[in-house]
């Protein structure tokens, strides 16, 4: 399954983007909430 995601450029793109947006959400809630 993982290899399928990696072998497709769009799949890799999606996995990476989801992870990045998740990390950005984490950063927002841990460090920035209330600061904006």
């Amino acid at each position, binding site marked *: 399954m993982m290899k399928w995601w990696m*072998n*497709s450029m769009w799949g*890799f793109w999606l996995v*990476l983007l989801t*992870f990045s947006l998740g*990390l950005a959400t984490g950063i*927002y809630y841990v460090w*920035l909430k209330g*600061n*904006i």
Partner: protein
Amino acid sequence: MFDFMIAGVQAPIFLLVFVGFTVGIVGGFIGVGGGYMVTPALIVFGFPGYMASGIDMTHIAGKGLVSTLRHRQLGNIDWTLALTMVAGTMLGVELGVRTLVYFKNLGIAGVVLLVTSVVVMFSLFLYTQIETRRSHRALDVMKSEGREIGRELHTSSLPKFFQSINLAPIVRCRTARVVVSMWVIVLVGVVTGFLAGFLGVGGGFIRVPALVYLVGASTHIAVGTDLVEIVFSGGYGALRHSIEGHVDMMAVVFMISGALFGAQIGSIATAYVRGPAIRYVLSYSLILATFGSVMRLIYVLTGQKVEWLSLIAVMLTLGEMIFLCLFIISLLYFARRNKRGAWVPEWVKPLVIS
């Protein structure tokens, strides 16, 4: 939390170093200053808008210098092209700023700016993405036929048209291996400078595709040459902002400390990939920035009442930096694995140098 006394805000040091590092990688790899990512991020961290622009510009000047030096070592700078374009860029920036002031006086600058940036970024994304996919497929075919593949391949026919304009003086750009009318280079400088001045950005994301698709330079040369422009424009911007008191040097120091490492990694990574890989990252950066601008545009048009739209714009700003940075590091990792003969995804093979 660190107390930035000049800016009058408290922000985590770690995040500033982190932003400097990630945007350093992206900037060194695709040849942009990254102002369209950094300024919104600094505003998110609590810095006032004018201070965010000043800190961003000053950090871009320092980071641009580091990336330029590294790209010079890699032989990615065409000085003839860079210095010919500077004059046109300066003129274009001045025209862009004056147009912006005109719209500001009409009271519609905010919406016009957002609409223009969305249209420009989305058009560039579309063209870059379609052309790069075509090049990727062509590289795939060449690889399967066992043919020799160089560092660059682009399938656009636009450079042939611009290089055929026979208007003296004709400039020979030796490193870029391009022979083109000086007026074409100046015109590219004016147009990209105009958009940069109007949108209030450094303009790397417009200049790199313009150098590749209009002048006909290879992507690596376009990246290195554009960074020279960024040192000039960033340096001038940093000076202007410092005189106006828009720069908190402590914030710049923290960002530069991350960018120093990031810019080196990003610049060195270009030596491991072919041109289309750089153009892919550029087009991804454009589409994500477009989404961020669309969210901000809807937020402004709805009277700044729908809070979750602003939150999504924040996520996209931070997410974009992390995503692009991870994508570049992944390409670097796959390129090294490919060199060792280890397994790498099929789509990566034509994009990296083995």
